[in-house]
């Protein structure tokens, strides 16, 4: 059985280690070894940090089929679950790590604010946030770190307003979020950071119970009162929304900008065409091309599942590597080329199946506003260092850059 510690020597040496390294000088491309595996077939085995050897699914069609299959589980406590790091501590971060029906019950408590119309109504506010931050940048010294001055504040300000979290606390929650999603953090560091965030959200819930506002945390306190949600469950959900709401989008803003700066023809196309259709197509293509959640979504099989003539056994661990799925030539012709005019809308950058990203309408709108504003307002924007000096987040479960020095 896979997913358990294997005695040394039991497995042939050719099972490769996962996660794999990207090639030097190709910061936007998935690891070459993943490409090679995908060429071989849709399914293979990899070896994890603990010696376990789960399956890895590399092709787009098989990934989608599997992610829509109710016979797989995200429950980290099940034997065989291919944990990306030494165990995360006892408290899972809300419904992202729960199976249906509990996952669906909790998720539906927070879906309303992410409906397309509700998100569209926020567009002018996001435009204003974006413009104000650019004004401040233009008035300040250069070069400037785009991550700190722009990429992190945009989504942080937005999710804070939506949740009812004071933005003044951003140093605190950004620091702790960073620790939680860092691969190299120790289990102790990670669970301490989680504990601090949960405590913080818990205090905020107290305030909202006493003094409800027009925000998501206040709405969650209603669910606590009706007994639909425990106090701890509400705090966990707040932690999930706060982390997921800013880290991912921030990385897409900074890494997307870098990818465009390295592809000046594409950047010019986007900047010069005042066309919302091209902007939204560019957002989808950058999501596909960059696929920032590069750690592979982890699952464990609940029953035997046959794929491509092979049988995944109940209890086998599964890694669905959507980063390489988004580079599958069977789904995207010439997949390694960034082409903002292609139709990439069927990408799996937000996952697939019932866990597909809850915040995607918000993320899309934020990225549309940012990509259609930043390069037009600062047409001479350029990198203030060499590409090989840019610190990439190789050690994070969300890929991106730690810093992006830019000037104009």
């Amino acid at each position: 059985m896979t997913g358990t510690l294997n005695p040394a020597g039991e497995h042939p040496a050719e099972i490769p280690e996962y996660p794999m390294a990207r090639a030097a000088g190709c910061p936007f491309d998935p690891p070459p070894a993943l490409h090679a595996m995908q060429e071989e077939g849709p399914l293979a085995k990899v070896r994890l940090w603990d010696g376990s050897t789960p399956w890895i699914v590399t092709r787009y069609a098989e990934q989608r089929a599997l992610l829509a299959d109710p016979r797989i589980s995200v429950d980290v406590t099940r034997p065989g679950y291919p944990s990306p790091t030494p165990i995360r501590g006892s408290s899972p971060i809300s419904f992202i790590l729960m199976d249906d029906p509990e996952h669906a019950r909790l998720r539906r408590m927070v879906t309303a604010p992410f409906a397309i119309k509700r998100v569209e109504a926020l567009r002018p506010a996001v435009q204003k946030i974006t413009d104000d931050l650019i004004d401040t940048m233009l008035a300040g010294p250069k070069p400037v770190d785009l991550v700190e001055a722009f990429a992190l504040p945009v989504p942080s300000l937005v999710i804070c307003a939506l949740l009812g979290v004071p933005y003044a606390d951003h140093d605190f929650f950004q620091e702790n979020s960073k620790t939680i999603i860092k691969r190299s953090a120790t289990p102790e560091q990670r669970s301490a950071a989680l504990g601090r965030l949960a405590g913080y959200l818990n205090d905020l819930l107290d305030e909202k119970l006493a003094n409800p506002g027009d925000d998501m945390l206040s709405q969650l306190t209603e669910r606590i009162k009706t007994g639909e949600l425990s106090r701890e469950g509400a705090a966990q959900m707040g932690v999930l929304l706060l982390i997921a709401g800013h880290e991912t989008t921030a990385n897409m803003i900074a890494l997307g900008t870098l990818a465009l700066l390295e592809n000046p023809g594409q950047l010019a196309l986007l900047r010069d065409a005042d066309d919302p259709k091209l902007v939204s197509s560019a957002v989808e293509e950058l999501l596909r091309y960059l696929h920032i959640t590069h750690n592979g979504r982890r699952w464990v099989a609940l029953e035997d599942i046959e794929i491509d003539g092979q049988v995944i056994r109940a209890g086998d661990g599964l890694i669905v590597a959507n980063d390489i799925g988004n580079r599958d030539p069977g789904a995207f012709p010439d997949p390694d080329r960034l082409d903002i005019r292609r139709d990439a809308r069927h990408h799996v950058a937000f996952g697939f199946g019932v866990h597909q990203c809850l915040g995607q309408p918000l993320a899309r709108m934020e990225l549309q506003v940012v990509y259609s504003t930043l390069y037009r307002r600062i047409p001479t924007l350029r990198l203030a260092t060499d590409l090989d000096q840019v610190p990439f987040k190789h050690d994070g479960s969300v890929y991106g850059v730690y810093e992006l020095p830019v000037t104009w």
Partner: protein
Amino acid sequence: MKVTIDQDRCVASGQCVVAAAEVFDQRDEDGVAVLLNPDPPAEQAADVRHAAVVCPALAIHIEE
């Protein structure tokens, strides 16, 4: 073309609304998809088919 939605499966991703806003909408209370037109005209057929392709919950069914 006949379209149906399985609202129990829907995870309120909004993908169908983005793909074909004339045919799909979302409920105010929880973002679950609702059908505006179960029998869309031919010129919307491609968008509706695309909605079914990108629906992460496989909740949209089409009879051609």
